[in-house]
């Protein structure tokens, strides 16, 4: 390179400066590469808003803040899913502890409960997700190793029985203990809930749960507008954001208002019994007192609120 007609004046200086210039070029290229690599993150952050980012934990929200949050979520649902929904926040009722029992003698494995859960709880249509998995079990034991949740044939098969499994709403819930940020907790009526706007999606609770009861939103759920269930609870069936945990809440948006869970209403055989175990006249109380019920994995000490029994 001649001194008189420098192609790049910056390269024409002392070697050290040339090195410095190369470094500068390298740094510029590096920054450009970094910006390109991070482009998807920029696109993603355009969908975020400050209010959502700064939203406090559910249990620290004031009544006014809750109103604002629910309004924002309703607007988001309208924008993202085209559905008009109303988000409520029913509170636990004093003197109520929920219990659930399932009569294995009459369950036919029709999976109506799974389907009802899928619809009620606004689950992702693409994955056909549900909080309930129904296992076809071999008679002669309660061995899940011989069970099959992916059966695809007419039911009931004569040599099988059927065992639906969902969240056991454990009194001593390993998922609640595991969560590093208290995004999941047990309500006074015994229901374990998740604040979907607080969860960071580490999935430690999913590893901790012995009943495969928790689900993760691997991507944002897809639901056609006309299929969205508009009757939504903040802590239960509202459409979950991408990247957070979700779980069965005993349909608290229904049950806390005196209705039955969707899975129970859908059951054609009457295998499901739900109610307040503190109420001596409730059916659930009668089942627990009079049937020989058992719980899953009792030896783990999780104290499930979900009971199974055989009738004959």
């Amino acid at each position, binding site marked *: 390179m001649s001194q008189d007609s420098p192609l790049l004046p910056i390269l024409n200086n002392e070697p050290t400066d040339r*090195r410095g210039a190369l*470094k500068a070029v*390298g740094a510029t290229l*590096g920054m450009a*590469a970094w910006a*390109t*690599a*991070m*482009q*998807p*993150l920029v696109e*993603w*952050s355009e969908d975020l808003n400050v209010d959502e*980012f700064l939203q406090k*934990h559910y249990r620290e929200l004031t009544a006014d803040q809750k109103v604002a949050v629910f309004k924002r979520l309703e607007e988001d649902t309208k924008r993202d899913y085209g559905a008009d929904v109303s988000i409520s926040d029913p509170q636990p009722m004093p003197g109520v502890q929920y219990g659930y029992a399932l009569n294995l003698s009459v369950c036919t494995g029709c999976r109506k409960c799974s389907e009802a859960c899928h619809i009620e709880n606004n689950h992702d249509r693409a994955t056909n997700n549900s909080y309930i*998995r129904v*296992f076809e079990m071999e008679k002669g034991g309660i*061995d*899940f*190793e011989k*069970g099959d*949740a992916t059966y695809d044939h007419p039911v009931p098969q004569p040599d099988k029985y059927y065992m639906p*499994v969902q969240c056991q709403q454990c009194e001593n819930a*390993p998922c609640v*203990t*595991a*969560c*590093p*940020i*208290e*995004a999941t907790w047990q309500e006074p009526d015994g229901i374990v809930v998740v604040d979907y706007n*607080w*969860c*960071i*999606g*580490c*999935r*430690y609770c*999913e*590893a*901790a*749960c*012995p*009943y*495969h009861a*928790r*689900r*993760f*939103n*691997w*991507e*944002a759920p897809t639901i056609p507008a006309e299929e969205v269930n508009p009757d939504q609870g903040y802590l239960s069936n509202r459409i979950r*954001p*991408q*990247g*957070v945990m979700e779980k069965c809440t005993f349909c608290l948006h229904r049950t806390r208002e005196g209705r039955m869970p969707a899975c129970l209403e859908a059951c054609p055989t009457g295998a499901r019994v739900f109610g307040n175990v503190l109420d001596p006249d409730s059916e659930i109380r009668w089942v627990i007192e009079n049937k020989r019920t058992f719980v899953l*994995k009792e030896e*783990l*000490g*999780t104290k499930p609120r979900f009971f199974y029994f055989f009738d004959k």
Partner: protein
Amino acid sequence: MALWPRPFPVSLKLDSALSAVTHVNTSHSDGYPRFLRRCFTEATDGPWTYIIWMVALTAVALVGANAWALQVRDGMVHTNMSDHVSWGLYIANFTFCVGLAAGGVMMVIPAYLYDDDDMHGLVIIGESVAIAAIVMSTLSVVVDLGRPDRFWHMIPGIGKFNWPMSMLTWDILVLNGYLLINLHIVGYLLYMRYLGLRPNPKWYVPFVMLSIVWAISIHTVTAFLYCGLGGRPFWNTALLAPRFLASAFVSGPAFIILALRVMRLSTKFHFPPQPARTLIQIIRVAMCANLLMLFSELFTLFYTGGGHAAAAQHLFFGSHGSYGLVPWIWTAMVLNIVGAILFFLPAALERGWLRIVACVMCIVGIWIEKGMGLIIPAFIPSTLHEVVEYSPSLVEWKITAGIWAFGLLLLSAMLKLIAAVFTSPSESGGIPE
């Protein structure tokens, strides 16, 4: 060659600017940032081989960053994880990196236990490996989060911190604490050298002691993260923490031996042969302990049989027509056992290819054993005994490779700084102005 606590060699020449720093006795609040700036200059300059190496690592790191950005935007559907196998390659790599971080420091225990002067020089190398490894393990957890934008929920005092109940909160505390301790030690030692002062033991020995205890804690807490879960029988064993520690005593020193080799080949900063020999001795004992515990674990599982052995059965022999993990674990077994045998050959005590091969075998073997052989099997079969297979997706491999590239980038820079600061300016110029 003992680097400290012996007096600093006065023969070491300092360029005028450096002397000026000490002579005018500028405050450290000015001096330390200037030191860091020069470190940055030094770390971004060097021979072409170094530049090419660093650019290549940067490129891989950027590929990983891009894959992560995609994953954050579109969701973790880009991974091959599922509700059945809800943790995968990221947490597997996390577990190994925590071991590496712990092992990098635990190996200095003999230095203090036996008052082995030569080993003291390795402290700074071990701490550097620990820093890089802890950054890698932190990144491995961050990329596993579904909502990294909500990271502030984890900050104690600002978010909600489920301490002491959640073992994950313990892990957050010990990992970050460990990073700070080691940054302090490495930063202090290098800064003192750079100023031409003898490091004051008061300012680093207590921290080295603390970091040793802390090193044991990070891997123990990480083991507790898994073994405390009653719903996962494969993890639910008291042997997990001891096994983690034993394997960390292998992977850490093995990694340091590799780092020493690289430094010997590429810088003028050479260690005497004895510390590496001590490391080999540590590896010999630790690898035997590790294999013994593994054998004991497997005996208990297979001899007892039943449901608790289902995961081990699937891992080693496959089940229900699925054999996805079988090649992984047998590769790990062969690498670990052959690696252990190589370490026991007398030639391993001498410099040469043998110990390098043995180190690489054991590092890869333990990486698999701690990851695909320990994290994944706990999910297959699932808690309700469903068998859903898992093998990492391309995005997961890219992100993990990116994390490793970034870790090696940090480590390379740190080793280069160490070499520059510790070699006499007359030879290599120290840290240039």
